[in-house]
């Protein structure tokens, strides 16, 4: 039986979606509930799962925009294919463009068992991992060149500017690494090859020796030469300092042509060049001590952060308004109930939930702060997806608390912990980091007294939290000492007027200084 897969209803205002990516190829064997495609609406990206196990037949191609309810693929059920493991090379017509030659019948057998060349080479290329991602970096190879790997075994960690993900082997066989660690690869760039074998290695993972013999018809793809430069291209790339792995070959079988090499962009200065650069024209050093510099290639994450932050400064009319919050009421409430809260919900009661709640309430009152500019239009959101800035060893990431306005305090706290932990471990998915409508950043955890945060585009505003310090303030004609936090709101003046931004921040302040308002909504 074949089952049709339709675009599900994903939200009330969404009438059509775009097929962002097929994660499975036409003809692949898929398991029930396995993610087969990524769909993209104007609001979010979501995944499409297989309704049953079977063979996938793709009807609508990547990039097509289709209305809700459209049949985009079929999954044909059959006992035979269901029994086969998913994506086994011998059972699966090869994904393009690599074309393993499967020839189970005419396999040479190595005496004494061991891996048997299945006559194919699986080329693993960088998958399309997200809409705005153009390149990834191989952060770590978990397997060595020449290692025997099995299907779906994790062989490398790959880092994009948004997330780190693991790379599973697409075939069983001997790994031939093409892209070295720390090299950047474009989407579709060749990562490695797997010489497909059948069976596990007995002693070593070398290819069996079968001289002569009957000729096996070759694959017409000639993909073994993908990424191989022509003589002129090799010279040009070397002079530019560009690795062949960084170039997408446009020639036959993915070969790198002279034109490809001419167009290839030079990589940033290599550490080795830096070494030679240091001794040239040394400044006169009066005192002793080492004066070495260290150069490292920017990670894709760091490059994206840099690019986007500068873009925000250039492309928005950003300014910041400040206020101060007397934290005493919140702190008192918190110290009074934190044990009971923890007991009941299993999470600690922090300040984040108070701020998030107050912000969501204020956003409802001042919708412009929760809006974004899209072309000539202002898009107002009737939900609050609050991005929270998390500092990780790799750099800043901003996961999103979805529908924060509808969550309870406990739910917000647990969501914050979940996202922050994933962020620190580099495990955040792209989906978890896209689509926020407003951001919070807390420089206070590092001791910041006051700052002017930068907007997280396409959002229009960001709230900066700071450290809580006991300060003398005048209240009802008396100087008292109370815990104060300065708060800052950076906003895009193109969307938000001064009245709205200031009023928004005052609203947040009022609710935090009198948490009862949060309940009453006043």
């Amino acid at each position: 039986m074949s089952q049709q897969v339709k675009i599900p209803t994903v939200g009330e205002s969404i009438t059509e979606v775009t097929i962002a990516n097929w994660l499975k190829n036409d003809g692949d064997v898929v398991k029930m509930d396995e993610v087969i495609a990524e769909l993209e609406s104007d609001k979010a990206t979501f995944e499409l799962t297989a309704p049953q196990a079977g063979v996938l037949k793709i009807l609508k191609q990547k990039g097509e925009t289709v209305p809700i309810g459209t049949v985009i693929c079929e999954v044909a059920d059959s006992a035979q294919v269901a029994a086969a493991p998913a994506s086994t090379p011998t059972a699966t017509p090869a994904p393009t463009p690599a074309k393993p030659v499967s020839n189970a019948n005419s396999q040479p057998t190595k005496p004494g068992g061991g891996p048997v060349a299945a006559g194919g080479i699986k080329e693993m290329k960088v998958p399309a991992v997200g809409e705005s991602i153009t390149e990834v970096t191989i952060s770590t190879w978990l397997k060595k060149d020449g290692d025997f790997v099995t299907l779906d075994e994790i062989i490398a960690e790959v880092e994009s500017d948004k997330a780190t993900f693991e790379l599973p082997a697409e075939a069983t066989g001997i790994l031939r690494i093409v892209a070295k660690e720390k090299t950047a690869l474009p989407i579709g760039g060749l990562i490695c090859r797997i010489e497909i074998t059948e069976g596990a290695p007995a002693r070593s993972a070398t290819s069996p020796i079968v001289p002569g013999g009957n000729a096996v018809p070759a694959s017409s793809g000639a993909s073994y030469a993908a990424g191989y430069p022509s003589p002129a291209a090799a010279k040009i790339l070397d002079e530019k300092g560009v690795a062949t792995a960084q170039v997408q070959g446009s020639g036959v079988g993915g070969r790198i042509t002279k034109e490809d090499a001419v167009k290839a962009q030079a990589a940033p200065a290599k550490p080795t060049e830096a070494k030679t650069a240091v001794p040239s024209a040394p400044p006169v050093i009066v005192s002793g001590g080492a004066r070495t510099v260290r150069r490292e290639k920017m990670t894709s994450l760091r490059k994206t952060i840099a690019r986007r932050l500068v873009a925000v400064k250039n492309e928005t009319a950003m300014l910041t308004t400040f206020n101060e919050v007397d934290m005493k009421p919140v702190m008192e409430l918190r110290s009074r109930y934190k044990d009971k809260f923890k007991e009941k919900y299993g999470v600690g009661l922090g300040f984040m939930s108070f701020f998030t709640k107050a912000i969501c309430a204020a956003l409802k009152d001042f919708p412009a702060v929760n809006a974004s500019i899209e072309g000539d239009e202002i898009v107002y959101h009737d939900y609050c997806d609050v991005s929270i800035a998390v500092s990780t060893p790799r750099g800043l990431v901003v996961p999103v608390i979805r529908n924060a306005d509808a969550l309870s305090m406990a739910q917000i706290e647990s969501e914050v912990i979940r996202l922050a932990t994933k962020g620190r471990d580099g495990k955040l998915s792209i989906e978890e980091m896209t689509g926020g409508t407003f951001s919070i950043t807390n420089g206070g955890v590092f001791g910041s007294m006051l700052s002017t945060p930068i907007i997280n585009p396409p959002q229009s505003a960001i709230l900066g939290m700071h450290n809580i310090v006991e300060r003398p303030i005048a209240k009802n004609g008396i100087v008292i000492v109370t815990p104060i936090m300065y708060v800052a709101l950076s906003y895009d003046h193109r969307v938000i007027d001064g009245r709205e931004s200031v009023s928004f921040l005052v609203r947040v302040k009022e609710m935090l200084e009198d948490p009862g308002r949060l309940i009453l909504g006043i």
Partner: protein
Amino acid sequence: MQYNVIVIGSGPGGYVAAIRCAQLGFKTAIIEKYDRLGGTCMNVGCIPSKALLDSTEHFHAAAHTFKDHGIDIPEPKVNFTQMIKRKDDVVKQNGEGILFLMKKNKIDVYTGVGSFVDKNTIKVAGKGKETTLTTEKVIIATGSKPMSLPFAPIDKKRIISSTEALELKEIPKHLIIVGGGVIGLELGSVYARIGSKVTVVEFLDSLIATMDGTMGKELQKILRKEGMEFYLGHKVIALENKGKEVVLKAEDKAGKPLELKGDYCLVSIGRRPYTDGLGLDKIGIELDRGRIPVDDHLKTKVDNIYAIGDVVRGAMLAHKAEEEGTLVAEQFAGQKPHIHYLLIPGVVYTWPEVASVGYTEEQLKADGRIYKVGTFPYKALGRARASMDTDGLVKVLADKNTDEILGMHIIGARAADMIAAGVTAMEFRASAEDVARMSHAHPTYMEAVREACLAATANRPIHM
């Protein structure tokens, strides 16, 4: 005089390096010991031997195949003096051509023995005068000389090297050749075609031993048909000039003696790198088995001194030296050229020619590669039959899994020209099927390459 680059030696490596340096804007000088530029290749190697090969091939055709072609002429006779003179003319013209190229590129030519004073100073000892030159960089391209047997030095009268073999005054009645490599066989085939009895004594068990085994076997078969005799697996133990004849004594592996008598003996057991008088000791360069040690950039242990061609590792081939000369010159200009040594073709200019590129079958076997073989004989080729050049075959080796061409070996008419197609295919890592799917004009010898590729692809040649 102060130069950016000085090249020592004007063979194909040296003069090409000099021209490329000049093209890239370096003030360049070239030093040559002999009066005529061009080195071994141009004067006593490739060019003169090819001139004689062609002459003798014409004679052979006139004597043997004209009749079949329907051309009746009186029995042709060899005018050996004229044959040598024509060869000399060709050499002279080529030498003048190189001199013209030096002038055109504003390269200063110094005649004399160049030797190092220090790493930036070169002394040129010419006829009666000495010149001292200074330079930033030096390219050593002093080439090689024929080797002689330890017990029988080349006397240039009856025990001769390839140099003398190209300017004999008479056609040898019986030419004994020690060494069944490229040079011995090329010159042997020259003299065999104009009536000499030619006997080849080779220490190894096959001819042109570094090439694919099929080539040596096939060549031996063809040359034997021409009347050449071969003693393989024989070690020469004595060689003596008795005045009017030479006597060679050898023995096979079982110790069975062999004695040959002839009027000339060509010793072609190989060539040694030539660095005599270069003064390498002045700059602290020590030789490694006669060769100048260099790194991947052809740089010696002295930072500003480079060496190319026969004086460094690798095959002693003119075109290999040319590539290296170009590479070094371009490196000086900050460029990063490459040489794929595997893809430098090897050629033997016998008739028919032998040419090859890439791995031999023996190498693939030793490396444990999984490969397949496709061959196609000239006999089955329309073009070859039309011109009565039906000896030979094309052999293509391809990876069994990917079909990538790993080696191409051709013996037959025009092999030396045809091998360029193999180099091109392999530089672009073409598969056998890629070549098989490209249109090859009919009727041509190149069709044999396509058919061999079809055979390698899936054992489906059309004309077999």
